[in-house]
Protein backbone atom coordinates (compact mmCIF):
# COMPACT_ATOMS: atom_id res chain seq x y z
CA UNK A 1 0.00 0.00 0.00
CA UNK A 2 1.20 3.47 -0.79
CA UNK A 3 2.00 5.42 2.37
CA UNK A 4 0.02 8.51 3.18
CA UNK A 5 3.20 9.99 4.64
CA UNK A 6 6.33 11.28 2.95
CA UNK A 7 8.32 10.45 6.06
CA UNK A 8 6.13 8.36 8.35
CA UNK A 9 8.69 8.10 11.11
CA UNK A 10 9.12 11.85 11.48
CA UNK A 11 5.55 12.89 10.74
CA UNK A 12 3.94 10.52 13.22
CA UNK A 13 6.70 10.53 15.81
CA UNK A 14 5.31 10.34 19.37
CA UNK A 15 5.54 13.76 21.05
CA UNK A 16 8.07 12.63 23.65
CA UNK A 17 10.40 11.27 21.02
CA UNK A 18 9.89 14.34 18.84
CA UNK A 19 10.84 16.54 21.78
CA UNK A 20 13.97 14.46 22.28
CA UNK A 21 14.84 14.95 18.63
CA UNK A 22 14.33 18.69 19.05
CA UNK A 23 16.69 18.81 22.05
CA UNK A 24 19.37 16.94 20.11
CA UNK A 25 18.98 19.21 17.12
CA UNK A 26 18.96 22.34 19.28
CA UNK A 27 22.27 21.27 20.79
CA UNK A 28 23.69 20.68 17.35
CA UNK A 29 22.37 24.04 16.16
CA UNK A 30 23.94 25.84 19.12
CA UNK A 31 27.24 24.20 18.28
CA UNK A 32 27.00 25.49 14.71
CA UNK A 33 25.89 28.97 15.78
CA UNK A 34 28.90 29.38 18.04
CA UNK A 35 30.58 30.23 14.77
CA UNK A 36 28.27 33.20 14.29
CA UNK A 37 29.76 36.59 15.19
CA UNK A 38 26.21 37.64 16.05
CA UNK A 39 25.26 34.75 18.35
CA UNK A 40 28.65 33.74 19.81
CA UNK A 41 29.00 36.70 22.21
CA UNK A 42 25.34 36.44 23.22
CA UNK A 43 25.71 32.74 23.99
CA UNK A 44 28.82 33.44 26.02
CA UNK A 45 27.08 36.09 28.06
CA UNK A 46 24.06 33.85 28.71
CA UNK A 47 26.20 30.74 29.33
CA UNK A 48 24.50 28.91 26.49
CA UNK A 49 26.45 25.86 25.36
CA UNK A 50 25.29 22.62 23.74
CA UNK A 51 25.82 20.79 27.03
CA UNK A 52 23.79 23.29 29.01
CA UNK A 53 20.64 22.29 27.15
CA UNK A 54 18.72 19.70 29.16
CA UNK A 55 15.10 20.20 28.14
CA UNK A 56 13.02 21.96 25.57
CA UNK A 57 12.24 24.59 28.21
CA UNK A 58 15.84 25.75 27.88
CA UNK A 59 14.78 27.59 24.74
CA UNK A 60 13.54 30.34 27.07
CA UNK A 61 17.14 31.16 28.00
CA UNK A 62 17.90 32.12 24.41
CA UNK A 63 17.93 35.68 23.13
CA UNK A 64 15.34 36.78 20.60
CA UNK A 65 16.19 37.54 16.99
CA UNK A 66 14.29 40.19 15.02
CA UNK A 67 14.12 41.37 11.45
CA UNK A 68 16.08 44.42 12.59
CA UNK A 69 18.92 42.13 13.64
CA UNK A 70 18.95 40.74 10.10
CA UNK A 71 19.08 44.24 8.69
CA UNK A 72 21.77 45.55 11.01
CA UNK A 73 24.01 42.57 10.26
CA UNK A 74 23.42 42.82 6.51
CA UNK A 75 24.58 41.01 4.51
CA UNK A 76 26.49 38.17 6.18
CA UNK A 77 26.80 39.17 9.84
CA UNK A 78 24.71 36.33 11.28
CA UNK A 79 26.28 33.56 9.18
CA UNK A 80 27.43 30.65 11.33
CA UNK A 81 29.82 29.13 8.83
CA UNK A 82 32.29 30.43 6.31
CA UNK A 83 30.98 31.55 2.94
CA UNK A 84 32.86 28.86 1.03
CA UNK A 85 30.21 26.40 2.23
CA UNK A 86 27.33 28.70 1.34
CA UNK A 87 25.80 27.97 -2.05
CA UNK A 88 22.76 30.24 -2.27
CA UNK A 89 21.26 33.37 -0.85
CA UNK A 90 17.73 34.66 -0.90
CA UNK A 91 16.74 38.15 -0.02
CA UNK A 92 13.72 40.27 0.78
CA UNK A 93 13.02 43.36 -1.29
CA UNK A 94 14.51 45.64 1.35
CA UNK A 95 12.16 48.50 0.60
CA UNK A 96 12.20 49.68 4.22
CA UNK A 97 15.97 49.71 4.61
CA UNK A 98 18.62 47.10 4.08
CA UNK A 99 17.23 43.95 2.56
CA UNK A 100 17.39 40.84 4.70
CA UNK A 101 19.66 38.14 3.39
CA UNK A 102 19.25 34.44 4.15
CA UNK A 103 22.10 32.07 3.38
CA UNK A 104 21.91 28.37 2.51
CA UNK A 105 24.40 25.53 2.39
CA UNK A 106 23.72 22.65 0.01
CA UNK A 107 22.42 20.68 3.00
CA UNK A 108 20.08 23.58 3.91
CA UNK A 109 18.68 23.53 0.38
CA UNK A 110 18.24 19.76 0.47
CA UNK A 111 16.43 19.87 3.81
CA UNK A 112 14.27 22.73 2.62
CA UNK A 113 13.31 20.90 -0.56
CA UNK A 114 12.57 17.81 1.49
CA UNK A 115 10.34 19.70 3.93
CA UNK A 116 8.33 21.32 1.15
CA UNK A 117 8.13 18.00 -0.71
CA UNK A 118 6.76 16.52 2.53
CA UNK A 119 4.21 19.36 2.59
CA UNK A 120 3.18 18.61 -0.99
CA UNK A 121 2.89 14.90 -0.24
CA UNK A 122 0.81 15.79 2.81
CA UNK A 123 -1.90 17.38 0.67
CA UNK A 124 -1.97 14.42 -1.68
CA UNK A 125 0.42 15.46 -4.43
CA UNK A 126 2.49 12.63 -5.92
CA UNK A 127 5.12 12.14 -8.60
CA UNK A 128 2.29 11.68 -11.11
CA UNK A 129 1.25 15.29 -10.64
CA UNK A 130 2.11 18.19 -12.91
CA UNK A 131 2.81 21.17 -10.70
CA UNK A 132 2.80 24.70 -12.12
CA UNK A 133 4.38 27.47 -10.09
CA UNK A 134 3.06 31.02 -10.45
CA UNK A 135 5.58 32.55 -8.04
CA UNK A 136 8.37 34.77 -9.24
CA UNK A 137 11.72 33.05 -9.66
CA UNK A 138 14.68 34.89 -8.26
CA UNK A 139 15.32 36.31 -4.84
CA UNK A 140 11.80 35.39 -3.68
CA UNK A 141 11.75 31.92 -2.11
CA UNK A 142 8.36 30.99 -3.57
CA UNK A 143 9.96 30.37 -6.95
CA UNK A 144 12.97 28.11 -6.46
CA UNK A 145 11.65 26.80 -3.13
CA UNK A 146 8.62 25.27 -4.79
CA UNK A 147 10.59 24.21 -7.85
CA UNK A 148 13.15 22.09 -5.99
CA UNK A 149 10.50 20.63 -3.69
CA UNK A 150 8.23 19.58 -6.54
CA UNK A 151 11.20 18.05 -8.33
CA UNK A 152 12.16 16.26 -5.11
CA UNK A 153 8.63 14.90 -5.00
CA UNK A 154 9.23 13.63 -8.51
CA UNK A 155 6.47 15.69 -10.09
CA UNK A 156 6.76 17.27 -13.50
CA UNK A 157 7.31 20.88 -12.51
CA UNK A 158 6.44 23.88 -14.67
CA UNK A 159 8.43 26.99 -13.67
CA UNK A 160 6.02 29.36 -15.40
CA UNK A 161 6.72 32.16 -12.94
CA UNK A 162 4.80 35.28 -12.00
CA UNK A 163 2.36 37.19 -14.17
CA UNK A 164 1.20 36.61 -17.74
CA UNK A 165 -2.11 34.91 -17.03
CA UNK A 166 -2.68 34.08 -20.70
CA UNK A 167 0.48 32.01 -20.72
CA UNK A 168 -0.53 30.26 -17.51
CA UNK A 169 -3.89 29.44 -19.07
CA UNK A 170 -2.17 28.00 -22.13
CA UNK A 171 0.30 25.94 -20.11
CA UNK A 172 -2.37 24.53 -17.82
CA UNK A 173 -4.47 23.60 -20.83
CA UNK A 174 -1.63 22.20 -22.93
CA UNK A 175 0.34 20.41 -20.23
CA UNK A 176 -2.60 19.14 -18.20
CA UNK A 177 -1.36 20.81 -15.02
CA UNK A 178 -2.89 19.16 -11.95
CA UNK A 179 -1.62 21.45 -9.20
CA UNK A 180 -0.95 25.16 -8.89
CA UNK A 181 1.12 27.10 -6.42
CA UNK A 182 -0.15 30.66 -6.09
CA UNK A 183 -1.19 33.41 -3.75
CA UNK A 184 -4.96 33.39 -3.08
CA UNK A 185 -5.66 36.57 -5.03
CA UNK A 186 -3.86 35.14 -8.05
CA UNK A 187 -6.01 32.01 -7.87
CA UNK A 188 -8.94 34.36 -8.41
CA UNK A 189 -7.29 36.30 -11.17
CA UNK A 190 -6.26 33.17 -13.03
CA UNK A 191 -9.77 31.76 -12.73
CA UNK A 192 -11.04 35.00 -14.26
CA UNK A 193 -8.51 34.64 -17.09
CA UNK A 194 -9.90 31.18 -17.86
CA UNK A 195 -13.46 32.50 -17.85
CA UNK A 196 -12.46 35.27 -20.25
CA UNK A 197 -11.32 32.60 -22.68
CA UNK A 198 -14.64 30.84 -22.27
CA UNK A 199 -13.19 28.02 -20.18
CA UNK A 200 -14.68 27.10 -16.83
CA UNK A 201 -11.71 26.55 -14.48
CA UNK A 202 -13.62 23.58 -13.03
CA UNK A 203 -13.20 21.84 -16.37
CA UNK A 204 -9.43 22.13 -16.31
CA UNK A 205 -7.11 19.39 -15.04
CA UNK A 206 -6.25 21.40 -11.90
CA UNK A 207 -7.27 19.48 -8.76
CA UNK A 208 -5.07 21.03 -6.09
CA UNK A 209 -4.01 24.56 -5.22
CA UNK A 210 -1.24 25.38 -2.78
CA UNK A 211 -2.07 28.84 -1.54
CA UNK A 212 -0.18 31.04 0.87
CA UNK A 213 1.97 34.13 1.42
CA UNK A 214 -1.15 36.25 1.77
CA UNK A 215 -3.64 36.28 4.63
CA UNK A 216 -6.96 34.85 3.55
CA UNK A 217 -10.15 33.75 5.19
CA UNK A 218 -11.87 30.39 5.26
CA UNK A 219 -14.58 31.97 3.09
CA UNK A 220 -11.99 33.00 0.51
CA UNK A 221 -10.61 29.47 0.45
CA UNK A 222 -14.11 28.07 -0.08
CA UNK A 223 -14.66 30.46 -2.93
CA UNK A 224 -11.37 29.52 -4.58
CA UNK A 225 -12.26 25.84 -4.21
CA UNK A 226 -15.67 26.44 -5.81
CA UNK A 227 -14.18 28.49 -8.64
CA UNK A 228 -11.68 25.79 -9.49
CA UNK A 229 -13.62 22.71 -8.45
CA UNK A 230 -10.40 21.83 -6.63
CA UNK A 231 -8.95 21.61 -3.14
CA UNK A 232 -6.99 24.59 -1.85
CA UNK A 233 -4.50 24.12 0.97
CA UNK A 234 -3.00 26.85 3.11
CA UNK A 235 0.78 26.78 3.05
CA UNK A 236 3.10 28.75 5.33
CA UNK A 237 6.69 29.69 4.94
CA UNK A 238 9.01 32.62 5.37
CA UNK A 239 12.39 33.26 3.87
CA UNK A 240 14.01 33.63 7.32
CA UNK A 241 13.14 30.00 8.07
CA UNK A 242 13.97 28.82 4.51
CA UNK A 243 10.90 29.70 2.46
CA UNK A 244 7.74 27.70 1.75
CA UNK A 245 7.73 24.39 3.59
CA UNK A 246 7.50 25.49 7.22
CA UNK A 247 3.88 24.46 7.80
CA UNK A 248 0.97 23.23 5.72
CA UNK A 249 -2.58 22.06 6.19
CA UNK A 250 -3.17 18.34 5.85
CA UNK A 251 -6.22 17.02 4.04
CA UNK A 252 -8.33 17.69 7.14
CA UNK A 253 -7.92 21.40 6.27
CA UNK A 254 -8.00 22.28 9.94
CA UNK A 255 -4.81 24.08 10.93
CA UNK A 256 -1.33 23.92 9.44
CA UNK A 257 1.06 21.26 10.72
CA UNK A 258 4.32 22.97 11.49
CA UNK A 259 7.27 20.64 10.93
CA UNK A 260 8.61 20.49 14.46
CA UNK A 261 11.60 18.36 13.59
CA UNK A 262 12.81 21.54 11.88
CA UNK A 263 11.54 24.22 14.27
CA UNK A 264 10.85 24.88 17.93
CA UNK A 265 7.51 26.64 18.04
CA UNK A 266 6.63 29.18 20.71
CA UNK A 267 3.51 31.28 20.94
CA UNK A 268 4.28 34.32 23.08
CA UNK A 269 2.48 37.37 24.30
CA UNK A 270 4.04 40.06 22.05
CA UNK A 271 4.21 42.54 24.93
CA UNK A 272 5.47 40.43 27.82
CA UNK A 273 7.21 37.84 25.59
CA UNK A 274 5.93 35.15 27.95
CA UNK A 275 4.22 32.00 26.62
CA UNK A 276 0.45 32.14 26.30
CA UNK A 277 -1.64 29.13 27.37
CA UNK A 278 -2.15 26.56 24.60
CA UNK A 279 -4.96 27.56 22.28
CA UNK A 280 -4.60 31.25 22.99
CA UNK A 281 -3.41 33.78 20.47
CA UNK A 282 0.11 35.16 20.52
CA UNK A 283 3.10 35.87 18.34
CA UNK A 284 4.70 32.96 16.54
CA UNK A 285 8.36 32.69 17.54
CA UNK A 286 10.50 30.11 15.74
CA UNK A 287 13.90 28.54 16.27
CA UNK A 288 15.48 26.67 13.38
CA UNK A 289 16.72 23.16 14.21
CA UNK A 290 17.89 21.92 10.87
CA UNK A 291 19.87 24.70 9.30
CA UNK A 292 23.60 25.33 9.04
CA UNK A 293 24.44 28.48 7.15
CA UNK A 294 22.32 30.79 9.21
CA UNK A 295 20.42 29.24 12.10
CA UNK A 296 18.07 31.69 13.82
CA UNK A 297 17.05 31.46 17.46
CA UNK A 298 13.69 32.63 18.73
CA UNK A 299 12.96 34.58 15.57
CA UNK A 300 10.02 36.92 16.10
CA UNK A 301 7.84 36.37 13.04
CA UNK A 302 5.31 39.06 14.17
CA UNK A 303 2.55 36.79 12.92
CA UNK A 304 -0.27 36.30 15.39
CA UNK A 305 -1.68 32.79 15.64
CA UNK A 306 -2.47 30.04 18.11
CA UNK A 307 -1.84 26.33 18.48
CA UNK A 308 -4.92 24.22 17.85
CA UNK A 309 -5.34 21.93 20.85
CA UNK A 310 -5.84 18.18 20.47
CA UNK A 311 -4.66 15.55 18.02
CA UNK A 312 -5.20 15.66 14.27
CA UNK A 313 -7.15 12.74 12.79
CA UNK A 314 -4.56 12.54 9.99
CA UNK A 315 -2.12 10.90 12.38
CA UNK A 316 0.58 13.54 12.19
CA UNK A 317 1.83 14.51 15.62
CA UNK A 318 3.26 17.91 14.67
CA UNK A 319 1.38 20.85 16.16
CA UNK A 320 -1.17 22.73 14.13
CA UNK A 321 -1.17 26.50 13.71
CA UNK A 322 -4.49 28.30 13.43
CA UNK A 323 -5.13 30.65 10.53
CA UNK A 324 -3.02 33.78 11.05
CA UNK A 325 -4.90 36.50 12.88
CA UNK A 326 -2.78 39.50 11.94
CA UNK A 327 0.54 40.99 12.90
CA UNK A 328 2.13 42.27 16.07
CA UNK A 329 3.82 45.05 14.09
CA UNK A 330 2.35 47.33 11.45
CA UNK A 331 3.39 45.31 8.42
CA UNK A 332 0.56 44.73 5.95
CA UNK A 333 0.46 41.89 3.48
CA UNK A 334 -1.40 43.04 0.39
CA UNK A 335 -1.56 40.92 -2.75
CA UNK A 336 1.27 38.86 -1.29
CA UNK A 337 3.52 41.88 -0.89
CA UNK A 338 4.84 42.96 2.50
CA UNK A 339 4.24 46.66 3.00
CA UNK A 340 4.94 48.96 5.93
CA UNK A 341 2.95 52.20 6.34
CA UNK A 342 6.22 54.12 6.65
CA UNK A 343 7.00 53.35 3.00
CA UNK A 344 3.78 55.05 1.95
CA UNK A 345 4.35 57.97 4.30
CA UNK A 346 7.83 58.50 2.90
CA UNK A 347 6.42 58.94 -0.62
CA UNK A 348 3.51 61.16 0.38
CA UNK A 349 5.85 63.49 2.25
CA UNK A 350 7.70 64.17 -0.99
CA UNK A 351 4.67 66.05 -2.33
CA UNK A 352 4.47 69.68 -1.15
CA UNK A 353 0.88 69.76 -2.44
CA UNK A 354 -0.09 67.40 0.39
CA UNK A 355 -0.62 68.03 4.08
CA UNK A 356 0.60 65.51 6.64
CA UNK A 357 -2.49 63.37 7.22
CA UNK A 358 -3.14 60.19 5.32
CA UNK A 359 -5.08 56.97 5.75
CA UNK A 360 -4.48 53.58 4.19
CA UNK A 361 -7.55 51.40 3.77
CA UNK A 362 -7.31 47.79 2.69
CA UNK A 363 -10.40 45.89 1.73
CA UNK A 364 -11.49 42.85 -0.17
CA UNK A 365 -13.14 43.70 -3.47
CA UNK A 366 -14.22 40.75 -5.65
CA UNK A 367 -11.92 38.53 -3.58
CA UNK A 368 -8.92 40.72 -4.31
CA UNK A 369 -7.06 42.93 -1.89
CA UNK A 370 -7.43 46.59 -2.77
CA UNK A 371 -5.51 49.36 -1.13
CA UNK A 372 -6.79 52.91 -1.02
CA UNK A 373 -4.56 55.75 0.08
CA UNK A 374 -6.35 58.92 1.12
CA UNK A 375 -4.02 61.88 1.21
CA UNK A 376 -4.90 65.29 2.53
CA UNK A 377 -4.44 68.21 0.17
CA UNK A 378 -2.53 71.17 1.58
CA UNK A 379 -4.39 73.78 -0.44
CA UNK A 380 -7.35 74.23 -2.76
CA UNK A 381 -7.10 74.66 -6.49
CA UNK A 382 -9.44 75.71 -9.23
CA UNK A 383 -7.84 73.29 -11.65
CA UNK A 384 -9.19 69.77 -12.12
CA UNK A 385 -6.25 68.87 -14.34
CA UNK A 386 -3.83 69.64 -11.57
CA UNK A 387 -5.70 67.34 -9.18
CA UNK A 388 -5.80 64.58 -11.76
CA UNK A 389 -2.09 64.84 -12.48
CA UNK A 390 -1.29 64.96 -8.81
CA UNK A 391 -3.14 61.74 -8.02
CA UNK A 392 -1.59 60.10 -11.07
CA UNK A 393 1.91 61.07 -9.98
CA UNK A 394 1.29 59.91 -6.39
CA UNK A 395 -0.06 56.59 -7.67
CA UNK A 396 2.97 56.11 -9.90
CA UNK A 397 5.49 56.90 -7.16
CA UNK A 398 3.69 54.66 -4.65
CA UNK A 399 3.61 51.83 -7.14
CA UNK A 400 7.36 51.96 -7.63
CA UNK A 401 7.86 51.91 -3.86
CA UNK A 402 5.36 49.25 -2.73
CA UNK A 403 5.06 47.27 -5.99
CA UNK A 404 1.28 47.27 -6.03
CA UNK A 405 -1.01 49.94 -7.45
CA UNK A 406 -3.12 51.65 -4.81
CA UNK A 407 -6.21 53.76 -5.42
CA UNK A 408 -5.19 57.31 -4.52
CA UNK A 409 -7.84 59.70 -3.23
CA UNK A 410 -7.20 63.34 -2.52
CA UNK A 411 -9.21 64.66 0.38
CA UNK A 412 -9.75 67.98 2.10
CA UNK A 413 -8.99 68.87 5.67
CA UNK A 414 -10.70 67.01 8.47
CA UNK A 415 -11.81 64.08 6.33
CA UNK A 416 -9.26 61.70 7.80
CA UNK A 417 -10.45 60.92 11.30
CA UNK A 418 -8.17 62.29 13.98
CA UNK A 419 -7.48 60.06 16.91
CA UNK A 420 -6.05 60.88 20.28
CA UNK A 421 -2.32 60.39 20.43
CA UNK A 422 -1.00 58.05 17.78
CA UNK A 423 -2.67 58.65 14.46
CA UNK A 424 -4.48 55.72 12.92
CA UNK A 425 -2.80 55.19 9.59
CA UNK A 426 -4.15 51.83 8.51
CA UNK A 427 -7.70 50.63 8.29
CA UNK A 428 -7.72 46.95 7.38
CA UNK A 429 -11.26 45.95 6.51
CA UNK A 430 -10.39 42.57 5.02
CA UNK A 431 -12.46 39.80 6.48
CA UNK A 432 -9.58 37.40 6.74
CA UNK A 433 -10.14 36.12 10.13
Amino acid sequence: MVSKFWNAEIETMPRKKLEQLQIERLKKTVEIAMGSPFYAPKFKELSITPDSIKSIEDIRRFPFTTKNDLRSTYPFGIASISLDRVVRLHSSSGTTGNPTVILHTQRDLDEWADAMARSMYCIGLRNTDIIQNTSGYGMFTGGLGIQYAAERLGALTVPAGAGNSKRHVKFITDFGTTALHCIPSYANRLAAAFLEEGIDPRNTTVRTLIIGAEPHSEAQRKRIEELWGAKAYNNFGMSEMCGPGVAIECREQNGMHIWEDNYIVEILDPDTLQPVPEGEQGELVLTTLNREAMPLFRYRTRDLTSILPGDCPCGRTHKRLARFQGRSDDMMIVKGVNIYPIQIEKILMQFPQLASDYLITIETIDDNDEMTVEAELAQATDDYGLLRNLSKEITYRLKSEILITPIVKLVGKGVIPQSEGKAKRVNDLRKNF
Partner: protein
Amino acid sequence: MKTIKQISIFLENQRGKLSDILTALKDENIEIQAASVADTIDYGILRLITSNQVKASELLSAKGHLVIINEVLAIEVESDTAAFANAIDVLTSGGCTINYLYTFHKAGKLVLIIRPSNLEKAEKVALSNGLNLIRGWE
Protein backbone atom coordinates in the same frame (compact mmCIF):
# COMPACT_ATOMS: atom_id res chain seq x y z
CA MET B 1 -8.71 94.68 -14.25
CA LYS B 2 -12.34 94.24 -15.06
CA THR B 3 -12.56 90.75 -13.60
CA ILE B 4 -14.45 89.38 -10.63
CA LYS B 5 -13.47 87.13 -7.76
CA GLN B 6 -14.59 83.52 -7.71
CA ILE B 7 -14.04 81.17 -4.81
CA SER B 8 -13.21 77.53 -5.45
CA ILE B 9 -13.67 75.01 -2.70
CA PHE B 10 -12.23 71.51 -2.78
CA LEU B 11 -15.10 69.13 -2.35
CA GLU B 12 -14.46 65.48 -1.64
CA ASN B 13 -17.32 63.07 -2.08
CA GLN B 14 -18.53 63.05 1.44
CA ARG B 15 -22.08 63.16 2.65
CA GLY B 16 -23.05 66.54 4.12
CA LYS B 17 -20.08 68.45 2.76
CA LEU B 18 -22.09 70.71 0.47
CA SER B 19 -24.73 71.30 3.16
CA ASP B 20 -22.03 72.37 5.61
CA ILE B 21 -20.78 74.98 3.20
CA LEU B 22 -24.20 76.33 2.33
CA THR B 23 -25.28 76.48 5.96
CA ALA B 24 -22.14 78.37 6.91
CA LEU B 25 -22.83 80.98 4.20
CA LYS B 26 -26.50 81.26 5.09
CA ASP B 27 -25.67 81.84 8.75
CA GLU B 28 -23.55 84.85 7.76
CA ASN B 29 -26.18 86.15 5.32
CA ILE B 30 -23.93 85.69 2.35
CA GLU B 31 -25.96 85.34 -0.85
CA ILE B 32 -24.94 83.06 -3.67
CA GLN B 33 -25.28 84.45 -7.18
CA ALA B 34 -23.95 81.43 -9.01
CA ALA B 35 -22.57 78.03 -8.26
CA SER B 36 -21.07 75.27 -10.31
CA VAL B 37 -19.79 71.78 -9.61
CA ALA B 38 -18.87 69.07 -12.11
CA ASP B 39 -19.45 65.38 -11.58
CA THR B 40 -16.25 63.53 -10.87
CA ILE B 41 -15.75 60.27 -9.03
CA ASP B 42 -13.62 61.11 -6.06
CA TYR B 43 -13.71 64.84 -5.64
CA GLY B 44 -15.12 68.01 -7.07
CA ILE B 45 -14.45 71.70 -7.10
CA LEU B 46 -17.32 73.89 -5.97
CA ARG B 47 -17.11 77.30 -7.65
CA LEU B 48 -19.10 80.14 -6.17
CA ILE B 49 -19.89 83.75 -6.89
CA THR B 50 -21.31 85.26 -3.69
CA SER B 51 -22.27 88.65 -2.36
CA ASN B 52 -19.05 88.80 -0.33
CA GLN B 53 -16.24 86.67 -1.68
CA VAL B 54 -13.55 87.69 0.79
CA LYS B 55 -15.76 87.10 3.80
CA ALA B 56 -17.07 83.83 2.36
CA SER B 57 -13.56 82.61 1.74
CA GLU B 58 -12.32 83.49 5.23
CA LEU B 59 -15.37 81.95 6.81
CA LEU B 60 -15.06 78.65 4.95
CA SER B 61 -11.31 78.45 5.51
CA ALA B 62 -11.87 78.93 9.23
CA LYS B 63 -14.30 76.03 9.13
CA GLY B 64 -11.58 73.80 7.73
CA HIS B 65 -12.49 73.86 4.03
CA LEU B 66 -9.83 74.20 1.38
CA VAL B 67 -10.64 77.44 -0.41
CA ILE B 68 -8.89 79.48 -3.05
CA ILE B 69 -9.89 82.80 -4.63
CA ASN B 70 -9.19 83.44 -8.27
CA GLU B 71 -10.27 85.89 -10.93
CA VAL B 72 -12.75 85.13 -13.69
CA LEU B 73 -14.54 87.11 -16.38
CA ALA B 74 -18.21 87.99 -15.88
CA ILE B 75 -19.75 88.99 -19.19
CA GLU B 76 -23.26 90.38 -19.17
CA VAL B 77 -25.28 89.83 -22.35
CA GLU B 78 -28.90 89.95 -23.44
CA SER B 79 -30.82 86.96 -22.20
CA ASP B 80 -30.96 85.07 -25.49
CA THR B 81 -28.96 82.41 -27.27
CA ALA B 82 -27.82 84.75 -30.04
CA ALA B 83 -26.12 87.05 -27.52
CA PHE B 84 -24.59 84.07 -25.72
CA ALA B 85 -23.28 82.70 -29.04
CA ASN B 86 -21.91 86.08 -30.05
CA ALA B 87 -19.94 86.47 -26.80
CA ILE B 88 -18.33 83.07 -27.19
CA ASP B 89 -17.64 83.74 -30.86
CA VAL B 90 -15.90 87.01 -30.00
CA LEU B 91 -13.62 85.27 -27.51
CA THR B 92 -12.75 82.26 -29.61
CA SER B 93 -12.27 84.34 -32.79
CA GLY B 94 -9.92 86.49 -30.73
CA GLY B 95 -7.81 83.41 -30.00
CA CYS B 96 -9.01 82.72 -26.45
CA THR B 97 -9.43 79.25 -24.97
CA ILE B 98 -12.15 78.67 -22.41
CA ASN B 99 -11.37 76.30 -19.53
CA TYR B 100 -14.89 76.34 -18.16
CA LEU B 101 -17.98 78.46 -18.00
CA TYR B 102 -21.27 78.67 -16.17
CA THR B 103 -24.12 81.15 -16.32
CA PHE B 104 -26.81 82.80 -14.25
CA HIS B 105 -29.57 85.32 -14.81
CA LYS B 106 -29.55 88.75 -13.23
CA ALA B 107 -32.22 91.39 -13.74
CA GLY B 108 -33.31 90.04 -17.09
CA LYS B 109 -29.77 89.68 -18.34
CA LEU B 110 -27.56 86.64 -18.76
CA VAL B 111 -24.21 86.63 -16.99
CA LEU B 112 -21.47 84.33 -18.28
CA ILE B 113 -18.78 83.38 -15.79
CA ILE B 114 -15.79 82.37 -17.84
CA ARG B 115 -12.38 81.12 -16.88
CA PRO B 116 -10.17 81.50 -19.95
CA SER B 117 -6.71 79.99 -20.06
CA ASN B 118 -5.27 83.49 -20.46
CA LEU B 119 -7.27 85.94 -18.40
CA GLU B 120 -5.53 89.16 -19.47
CA LYS B 121 -5.83 88.36 -23.14
CA ALA B 122 -9.50 87.40 -22.85
CA GLU B 123 -10.24 90.59 -20.96
CA LYS B 124 -8.63 92.66 -23.72
CA VAL B 125 -10.45 90.80 -26.49
CA ALA B 126 -13.79 91.18 -24.67
CA LEU B 127 -13.36 94.90 -24.05
CA SER B 128 -12.14 95.75 -27.54
CA ASN B 129 -15.20 93.98 -28.97
CA GLY B 130 -17.64 95.86 -26.81
CA LEU B 131 -18.62 93.07 -24.45
CA ASN B 132 -19.93 94.25 -21.12
CA LEU B 133 -17.66 93.06 -18.31
CA ILE B 134 -19.21 93.46 -14.91
CA ARG B 135 -17.42 93.80 -11.63
CA GLY B 136 -19.46 91.73 -9.23
CA TRP B 137 -21.27 92.95 -6.19
CA GLU B 138 -18.65 94.04 -3.78
